[in-house]
Structure formats: structure tokens, C-alpha cells
């Protein structure tokens, strides 16, 4: 252990971390508490730093201001379809780039890498217009489908393939008589499961938390996803903040629970691009 940190007593090291942890989790605790208070309690002085007893009424109020469970279902639907689609299509494209030599491959791959650098903001307007032209404005399809074969996912999986699958293995499968698709499906896919899991995590979190695309694509409240629905009740006159905080808290629960069990995989997945440099 380097001397800089050894010279600090153990307690102070933990103290630094605990301050960091408290600052991090305070808003989460706060939102959980606010979900149990009425609006007037929240804005009383001093504000209540404890769990209140208005959970049920906040929940009822939440259902009045938005079809919460429908919206949650929409979020789930979009995220699950987009994730499954991405796992399938990105691995398929990655296999195409990995297993074959063909004219134009390097050019296309280069364009793909370059396209990752294009800031999404630039494509926002034309993306919206394209969605309009295609007649899929105000559909969930427009939220999950355009991203199923994305450059990041393809690149991630192709990189994993190059380190985990040898040319001999593909040749062996060819000699065994497997068709191209069969090699991809029965030989390659089972061997890249860790990369597929990483991609699935990144995709699901990205889709679940996505706000900008729903904001410009969706217009029917019944089709709203969680992020959009929560934002839409923010500006209600006399906002029922207890109910909104409850909804906000509930919207975070699925990912928080998943993080409880898969924190290692989720952290590794979301920093995959960065850590491997």
C-alpha cells in the first residue's frame, strides 16, 4: 500500500468514503420519504426528515395524475424489446464484421466507428423528421427499433469475439457442416454470452432512462414512458409533490433492485468502453 494512504488512520479513510456515500444516497432516501408525505408536509418548516403516513393517498393521487402502471409497462415494453433486439442484431452484425473478409469492410467499419463520435444532438432534428416520414411518430416502435443495430453494441461485441473466438473454431464448424447462420447461432453466440450480457445491461438502462427520444416522438399520454410521464406532471398547477416523488421513486426501483444483485456486471458494462480504452 502506497505510503500516502497508509499515513492516514483507517477511520479517516472510512470517514471520507462515508461522506461520499451519504452525499450519494441522500437524494434517494429523501425521495422515498417524500413519497410518504403530503404536499403541505413537504413544504412545512422544517421539512420532515422521516417517513410519513400518506403513502396510500399519494399512491391514489399518483394514479389520478398519470396511468402509472400503464406507463411503467410502456417503459418495460420499450426497454425489453430494444434490449432483445440489440442483443440479436448487434451480435449478428458483429459476426459479419468478425468472421468475413469482404471488399468495403474496413470502410464500413471505419464509418461505423466515426458515427459513434457524432453527437446525438446533431441527428435529433433529422431523426425526428425521418420518424415522421416513416409514419411511426407517436409509436413505441420508433423508441426501441432505430437503436437495435447500433455502432457501440456492434463494436463491443466484435471486440469480444476477436479475443474469444479463433479462426480454427469457425473453420472446425464449417468442416462439421454448419451453415453460416448455424455457426453464428450454435457456436459463436454461446461463446460471447458475457459480451451479450454487457450489451443487454447498457441497452436496458439506456432505454429505461431515455427521455429525449420519447420527448420528441411521443404525444399521446397513454403511450408515455416513465421519464416522460413524470416530467409531464412536474408543471401541473398545485403539483401533488408527494405523489410525484412516489412515482419518481417507483420508477427508479427496478434498476436499483437490479443493481443490488448485479452491481459488478452493471458497472463493468457501463464503463466497458472506457476501461478497455
Amino acid at each position, binding site marked *: 500500500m502506497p505510503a500516502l494512504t497508509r499515513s492516514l488512520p483507517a477511520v479517516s479513510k472510512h470517514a471520507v468514503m462515508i461522506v461520499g456515500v451519504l452525499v450519494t444516497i441522500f437524494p434517494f432516501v429523501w425521495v422515498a420519504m417524500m413519497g410518504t408525505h403530503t404536499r403541505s408536509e413537504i413544504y412545512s418548516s422544517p421539512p420532515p426528515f422521516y417517513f410519513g403516513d400518506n403513502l396510500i393517498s399519494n399512491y391514489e393521487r399518483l394514479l389520478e395524475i398519470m396511468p402509472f402502471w400503464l406507463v411503467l409497462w410502456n417503459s418495460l415494453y420499450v426497454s425489453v424489446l430494444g434490449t432483445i433486439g440489440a442483443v440479436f442484431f448487434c451480435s449478428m452484425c458483429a459476426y*459479419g464484421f468478425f468472421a468475413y473478409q469482404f471488399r468495403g469492410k474496413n470502410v464500413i467499419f471505419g464509418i461505423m466507428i466515426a458515427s459513434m463520435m457524432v453527437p446525438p444532438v446533431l441527428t435529433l432534428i433529422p431523426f425526428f423528421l425521418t420518424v415522421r416520414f416513416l409514419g411511426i411518430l407517436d409509436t413505441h416502435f420508433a423508441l426501441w427499433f432505430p437503436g437495435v443495430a447500433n455502432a457501440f453494441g456492434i463494436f463491443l461485441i466484435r471486440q469480444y469475439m476477436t479475443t474469444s473466438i479463433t479462426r480454427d473454431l469457425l473453420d472446425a464448424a464449417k468442416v462439421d457442416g454448419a451453415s*453460416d447462420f448455424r455457426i453464428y447461432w450454435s457456436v459463436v453466440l454461446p461463446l460471447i454470452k458475457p459480451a451479450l450480457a454487457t450489451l443487454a445491461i447498457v441497452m436496458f438502462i439506456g432505454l429505461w432512462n431515455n427521455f429525449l427520444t420519447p420527448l420528441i416522438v411521443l404525444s399521446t399520454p397513454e403511450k408515455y414512458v416513465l421519464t416522460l410521464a413524470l416530467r409531464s406532471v412536474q408543471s401541473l398547477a398545485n403539483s401533488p409533490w408527494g405523489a410525484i416523488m412516489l412515482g419518481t421513486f417507483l420508477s427508479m426501483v427496478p434498476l436499483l433492485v437490479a443493481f443490488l444483485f448485479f452491481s459488478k456486471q452493471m458497472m463493468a458494462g457501463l464503463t466497458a468502453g472506457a476501461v478497455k480504452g
Partner: protein
Amino acid sequence: MTDVTSNSAAAASLSAERRARRRKRAFRKALMPWLFISPYLVLFLVFTAFPLLFSVYLSFQEWNPVTGLSGMSFVGLANYAQAITDPWLWKSLYNTVWLAIATGIPQHVIAIPIAYLLVTAFRGSFRHLYTATMFIPFITSTVAISLIFYTIYSSNNGILNQWLLGLSSVPVIGALFAWVPDAMPIRWLGSSDLLKPAIAMVVIWKYTGFNIVIYSAGFLTVSKDLYDAAKVDGCNAWQQFWHVALPMIRPFIFFALTLTIIGNLQLFEEPFILTAGDSGGVSQAGLTASYYLYLVGWEWLEMGSAAAISWILFAFIALATSVHFYFNAREGLEGHN
């Protein structure tokens, strides 16, 4: 083969047959990779390449999408001219840069020492517990986080103000907060001076954990032998950090900085929610470039102008990124070894 060579006509027809078969098979073989990458090609062409080209075209048109395609009319460079004379654009660019710096620097200045401490002073479950907890904001939706902070920042008895008030009445440190009661209520989101710092705090809070994880991975790549060697060379604790650990994680710093710069220049959700989507907040103090783009395109329905603005914004991001690459890439990418 003898039966074939005996008859040249038969041989010719056989070889023609072979050639045909071979061509067919070669075609199928050549098609295969394209089949596999076709999902990317189709989606890229439809949702990225075509839109980009179209937005170039669009930036020279005046168009309200409600009027349909026929409502488009060519206006030349008017959209660009209009955009760069619009004070809101400059204001939004200024805000964007302000926020990029004010949120970018603290993220890394906080994350690097914490990651170093985590890697060098903690092991196994403690390290994971701390790291994972501080990572949570990154996986949480920005909308949810911004809504939570929206209430925390509330000027009417928001918890932040209440705490400051509370601190001012604590015996010793209260002196430091003596100004608080006079300043009440502090309008975090309602004053043009405080709006940007308030937004910046949310951004810092959300992304520092992510950088901690990246830097932890970086510090983990530094072998213990190197610290020992430095000790043998007479480096003190501070020198070990400054001359050994820090240079070794240069590639990580470079990468994390790149992500921060590109991300921060596109900041949208935090300011949008914290200003309740209301024209960039008090005197547009929270109006970022992306936010402005959204207003022009979707609130004011001027798609042509919005397209022009998005290209201006792109040029701006490209410029900032290349400045960063120019000054940092060589060192950053070379890193160790």
C-alpha cells in the same frame, strides 16, 4: 476425367456448367457477410446517414413541420444568419461552456483522489460497497434525479435551504452561515446567478461516481512493484501519487475527459427539468445549446432554423473536442509503456 477429355465439346459444356455453378456459389458466398451486417446498414442509412444529409438540406429551408413537406421554402443562409444574430444562441453557448467547465473539472478533481484512496486503502467488499454506492446515480434516470433535486432546491422550505438555516444556528460553525437567514429564501432555481451552479451540482453529483469507477480501473492497472521501485528511489507518499500513479492512468484521464466534454456540451435533461422546461429558466440562465435547439424545433416549430443550429452546435462540439485532442491526445493515448 478421361471420358471428358475424349470429347472436346462435352468438355466445353462441362466447364461452362462448372463456371455457372461456381459463379452462383461465389455470389452466395460474397453475399453472406452483407446479409449479416445488413441490419446495421439499413438502420444506419435510414436513421443516421439520410437524416444527416437531409438536415444539411433542411438547414437552408424555412419549414414548419405542421404545414407538411410542401410548406418548405428555400431561404439560403438565412437560418444560419438568423441563428448567429440571435442573442439566445450566444447565451446558450455561453451557458453550455460555463456548465461544461463548472461540472467537468470538479467531477475529475473529486473522482481521482477518491479512486486512488479506494484502490490503495481498501480491499474486496469495502471497496466494492463504496464504489458501487457512488455509482448508483449514474444508472438512475436523469429525469428522476432532476425531479428530486427540483424539490431539494425548492425555495419555500426546500430541504437545502432548511439545512443551511439549521447550520447557521449551530454554535461554532454557525458563524460561517451567518449570512443565511438574511438571504432567505434562497431561490436556487429562481435566480439567474444561482441557476447554473444548481444545475452544475446535479451534474457533478450524477457523474462523479462513474469517473471514480473508471479511475479505479486505471489505478488497478498500476502494479505494486512500481510503487516499491519509487519508494526505493526515495519518493515520498505525495511523489508516489504525483509521479507514479497519476502518469500511469493518463489514458484513463484522457478517455474520461473526452466523455465528459462530449457529454457536457450536449447537456439537456438536467437544465430542462430543473427549469421545468420553461424557456431556459430565469433570463435564460439555464438555457444550454441542446435546450435551445429543442425550443426552436419543437416549441417554435422552426425546423429549418433548428437544423442550422444543430450544425452550429456540431461545429462547436467538434472544435472543443479537437482542441482537447490536440492538447491531450498524444500524451493521453500513449500513456504508459
